């Protein structure tokens, strides 16, 4: 019977057989093969038989599942393969299953300095592992996704609440605006809220908005609970869980 062995520095930590039922792997203790590491998602991957072949499937994990050197969403496993999850290594014993050597057949030539190059999968995996070790913030953020929301507390708009799901949000009278402001003499694009890598920024459009009463001339990062006023509309910017 096929089995999976969770390794830590060449030592077997835990072994589980793969039978007719899928083996689940993840950080949550209710997995068949729990892996206690922040770089591992709660329900990270599963391994099961399909049509006589052993298959590993990544469950949309944050840091990915690697078979040997290749990041996979779903892959057939062969005897002797290694599944890498975070910095943990799971050995695949699929005795009876013919081993197939894995080789991309492509060898990257040594890059010249200053030449743009693409990282191969091994280097990429190591980079991601290294990143995961220091990336606790990312893990926690993924666990409790917060949705930025605008709550209208004054003025006329087409909705009372807006979840900011797009990278670019426009507040104005335009038919294409996300927050549609109603009334005469309102500008098509009064202001904008843009998502950047470190948060949400409000910027002027045809009008100069205020944040907590202070007029802004350039992009200003929004904090939970900020009060925004523009074109006669008052809104609270909040992060909803």
């Amino acid at each position, binding site marked *: 019977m096929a089995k999976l062995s969770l390794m830590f520095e060449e030592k077997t930590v835990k072994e589980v057989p793969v039978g007719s039922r899928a083996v689940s792997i993840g950080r949550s203790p209710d997995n068949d093969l729990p892996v206690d590491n922040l770089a591992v998602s709660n329900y990270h991957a599963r391994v099961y038989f399909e049509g006589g072949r052993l298959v590993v499937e990544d469950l949309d994990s944050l840091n990915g599942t690697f078979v040997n050197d290749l990041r996979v969403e779903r892959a057939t496993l062969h005897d002797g393969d290694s599944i890498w999850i975070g910095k943990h290594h799971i050995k695949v014993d699929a005795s009876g299953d013919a081993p197939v050597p894995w080789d991309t057949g492509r060898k990257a030539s040594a890059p010249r300095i200053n030449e743009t*190059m*693409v990282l191969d999968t091994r280097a990429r995996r190591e980079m991601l592992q290294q*990143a995961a070790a220091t990336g606790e913030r990312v893990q926690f953020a993924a666990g409790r996704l917060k949705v930025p929301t605008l709550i209208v507390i004054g003025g006329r708009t087409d909705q009372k609440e807006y979840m900011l799901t797009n990278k670019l949000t*426009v507040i104005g009278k335009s038919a294409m605006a996300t927050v549609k402001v109603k009334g005469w003499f309102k500008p098509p694009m009064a202001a*904008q809220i843009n998502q950047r890598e470190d948060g949400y920024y409000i910027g002027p459009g045809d009008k100069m908005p205020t944040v907590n009463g202070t007029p802004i001339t*350039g992009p200003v990062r929004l904090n939970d609970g900020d009060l925004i006023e523009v074109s006669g509309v008052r809104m609270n910017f909040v992060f909803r869980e």
Partner: protein
Amino acid sequence: MRIVSGGVTDLGRVRTNNEDCFRIVESLNLFVLSDGMGGEAHGEVASEMAVETIVKHCTEAQSDAGATMMGNSESTWSEKTKRLTSAVHLANKTIYDSAEAHPEQHGMGATVTTAWIDGSRLSIAHVGDSRAYLLRGGTLQQLTSDHSLVAEQVRRGILTAAEAEESEMQSVLLRALGALPDIEVDTEEHSVFARDILMLCCDGLTRMVTEPEIAGTLQAETDPTRAAEKLIALANERGGVDNITVIVVRVGAESQGWFSWLFGGARRRAARNGAAGGM
């Protein structure tokens, strides 16, 4: 919406060959920019292959809506967005297959950043570290994420933005066309507003010129080609260590208010009648 655009590519001050490639298809409002990599002139091959494949795929889809789509797409996307994403997948496969078939091309690859404006919708499809920027209401916003090692390290909090700028690893990409048989493409859809300015550029510009300088130049110079030339001149003044390519796209101001609605409406009706009469 009335759209005017211009693009310029330049060797820079250090390189001896230009591995960048771009194309503007005015009739479609399709914009494609690619930065190639790989020694012995193969970077040029890869970037040109990327641009040609994408333009051809999108152009052909205009007359053959049933043309095969490559890669995954989301059901909410417009046909143009799906097509553009499919074109990038196809470009990846074309470069990869060519490198597999020609050993001397091994290791060649390319970034690609594409934009397609259809009415008031902007579709963006992107792989690599070239960039798309939107200047709206005086605010310059980067629309694309860099698929580079240092950018990923910044996102994960390992490096600060300042450290990333100093890093010797800036040339290391995590994603590029031609490296693997399949690729993940970043796709986005946005609404276009009057007076928006879109800019596509390669890293040869963004490593030499700051974002405030880009915003200032795009606002000061209303002719798209001249704006691109000025940005390239600035990058060359700073050393021009890489090839530099810039595409600038300006969305015309829309007439607004009841006054222009009355008179603009009359003009549009006259134009329609004129066109009908001429046919």
